[in-house]
C-alpha cells in the first residue's frame, strides 16, 4: 500500500483488503475469543470449587439427609453376608463388585492375627470420579449427597474407574454402563427402606448406616466423639469420603 494514502485509508472504502490487514483482524478476533473462552473455562472450574473448594470443608452438612456409613472394623469377621446381600438386592454380576471385604493377615500380632476391612464406594464429598467424567454421567445428588449414575449418559470410557481412589466402580455389561454402590438408593432408600442391604445383613453390627446431619442419629454419635479414633481411607486424595472407619 502506498504510504501517502495511509492517513486517508480509514475514511475511504478500500477496494480490496490487504493480506496484512486480514491477518491483523483475525489475530484480534482470536485474541478476543480466546479471552472469552479461557475466561469461561476458568469460571467453570471456580464454579465447581464454589461448592467444595479443595482442602476446605463446609461449615455445616450440606445435604439433608447426609448419608454416610460407619464401619467398625474390629467387629468384622469376614463372613461375607453383606456381600451376599448386596449382590442379591442390587443384581451385582459376578465379575463386578459394589462392596467387598479386604483381608489382612498379621501372623506376628498378639491375639487376633487377621483383620477384615469392608470397603465400598465412599460417596466422596469431592468425588474424583465426578470431576473425571467427560459426559457428566455421574453426579453427586444435590439432596442426599449420594454419587449417582445416569446410565443413559454413560459411554463406558472407564475414566471414572481409573479416577476412583477406592476402586469402587466397575463396568456392568448388563446395564451397558458403569455401576457402583449407591447406598441402595434405587432398590431400598427410594422405596422407603431406610437402611442399606449390607448394613442390615451384617450379623455383627459392623456397618452403621445413617444421616450424619442429624444429631440424634447413631452415626452422628459414633463419628462425633473423641474416645475412639475415627478415620477415613486415603485421606490424602482430598476426596473427603463419607465412609468412616473406627474400632470399638
Amino acid at each position, binding site marked *: 500500500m502506498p504510504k501517502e494514502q495511509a492517513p486517508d485509508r480509514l475514511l475511504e472504502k478500500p477496494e480490496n483488503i490487504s493480506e496484512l490487514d486480514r491477518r491483523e483482524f483475525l489475530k484480534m478476533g482470536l485474541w478476543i475469543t480466546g479471552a472469552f473462552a479461557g475466561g469461561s473455562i476458568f469460571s467453570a472450574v471456580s464454579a465447581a470449587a464454589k461448592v467444595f473448594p479443595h482442602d476446605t470443608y463446609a461449615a455445616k452438612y450440606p445435604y439433608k439427609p447426609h448419608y454416610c456409613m460407619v464401619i467398625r472394623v*474390629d*467387629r*468384622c*469377621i*469376614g*463372613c*461375607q*453376608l453383606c456381600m451376599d446381600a448386596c449382590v442379591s438386592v442390587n443384581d451385582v454380576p459376578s465379575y463386578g463388585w459394589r462392596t467387598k*471385604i479386604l*483381608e489382612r493377615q498379621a*501372623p506376628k500380632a498378639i*491375639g*487376633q*492375627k*487377621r*483383620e*477384615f476391612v469392608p470397603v465400598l464406594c465412599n460417596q466422596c464429598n469431592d468425588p474424583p470420579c465426578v470431576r473425571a467424567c467427560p459426559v457428566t454421567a455421574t453426579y453427586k445428588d444435590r439432596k442426599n449427597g449420594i454419587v449417582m449414575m445416569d446410565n443413559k449418559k454413560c459411554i463406558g470410557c472407564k475414566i471414572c474407574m481409573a479416577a476412583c481412589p477406592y476402586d469402587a466402580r466397575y463396568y456392568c455389561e448388563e446395564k451397558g454402563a458403569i455401576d457402583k454402590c449407591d447406598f441402595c438408593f434405587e432398590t431400598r432408600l427410594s422405596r422407603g427402606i431406610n437402611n442399606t442391604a449390607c448394613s442390615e445383613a451384617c*450379623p*455383627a453390627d459392623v456397618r452403621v448406616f445413617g444421616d450424619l446431619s442429624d444429631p440424634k442419629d447413631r452415626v452422628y454419635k459414633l463419628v462425633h466423639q473423641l474416645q475412639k479414633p475415627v478415620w477415613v481411607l486415603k485421606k490424602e486424595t482430598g476426596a473427603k469420603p463419607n465412609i468412616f472407619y473406627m474400632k470399638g
Partner: protein
Amino acid sequence: MRNRLIFIFSLPFIFAGMSAVAADGATKGILYTKPLESVIFSHASHAQKEFSCATCHSGLFEMKAMEAQKNKDFIMDSLYKGKYCGACHDGKKAFAADTQCARCHLGFGAKLAAEEVPLFKKNVKLGKSAKGVAFSHDKHPQSCHSCHPSLFVPKEGADKVRMADHGRDRYCFTCHDGEKAFAWGDCSRCHTEPVSAPGGVINFGQGKKAVAFRHETHKPKGGCKECHPKLFSFTKGAAKIDFDDHLRQKSCFVCHTKKNATAFYDCNRCHTDKKPPKLGGPDTLTYKTTMQNVYFHHESHSEFACNLCHPAPFAMKKGKTKMVMAEMFKGKTCGLCHNGKMAFHVRQCARCHKQ
C-alpha cells in the same frame, strides 16, 4: 576345593528343607461353617496342662466333631451367657468372647489344611500294677464318640473296670463280647501279665455249714471260662446254691455229678460239717397219715442210685412231695415202682403203714 563347592551348593537345599518343615503355618482343626463361615477350632491351641479332655467333653461339647453347630443356640449370645466356648472365654479364664472377633473367625471359606489330630493319650493304662490292661487307641480306630463319653469318661483313671463287669454290657465288653470284637475269655489278650485265679477260700454259706471252695483245687482245661460267668458270676457272694441244684446239674454240679447219678454220693466231701454218708443213705423219713404212719427207710432202697427217685417224682425237700394213695395206684410217686411188677403192689398197705 571340590568338597567346599559341594557344601556351598547344597546349603540352599538344606535351608529349603528346614523351612519346609518349620513353616507349617497351615490351620488344622475342626472347621465350623454354621451359622457363619468360618471358625476353625484347634485342639492344639487348647493343650494346656490343666486341661483334660473332660474339661470340655463332659457337657459343653459332644465328642463328635461338628455336633455343636447343629444346635440352634450356637450363636454368640450363648457364648456371652457361658455356653460352649463362653464357659472359659469370659474374660477371666481366657479372652472374652466379645473381643478380638477375628481371632477365631477366619472369614469366608477358610480351609482346613489337614485332618486334626486330637489330643489324647495313645496308650492308656487301665488299672494299676500287674493286673492292669494296656489299652491302645491305635488298635481301636473308631471315632471318639463311639466310646466317649457314653462308655468311658475321657479322663484317665476315672473309670474302674472290675471283674464283675466282665461279660456284662459295660465298658469294653459292649464290643468285646465275641461278636463285634474278640471275646474276653482269654485273659492274656488284654491283661499284660497273666491273671491267676484268686487264692484263698471262698465260702458258700455261713458258719459251720459253709462249703469251702478253693480255686487251687479247681483247674479246668478251659480255664476261667469253664465256670465264669455261665455258672458263677465274678462277684463274691452272688452265687446261692439251692438244695435242689444238686440234682438239676447247676453250678458246681455241672461237673460234680456222677454219670446218671446225683451229687449226693459224698456229702462230706464238700460239706465238711456233715458226717460221712451212711451206707444206707439219709435217715428215716416219717410220713404222718390219718391212719398209721409210714416210716420210709432209705436203707431198704439203698441199692438204687439216688437219682432214680430224685428229683422226680420225689423232691429233695422234706414234706414237699404230697403222697396221695389214689395217685400211687395210678403209678405216681411210690407207685412208680410199687405196682406189683418191679416191687410189691401198693395194695399191700401193712407193708408200709406200721406202728
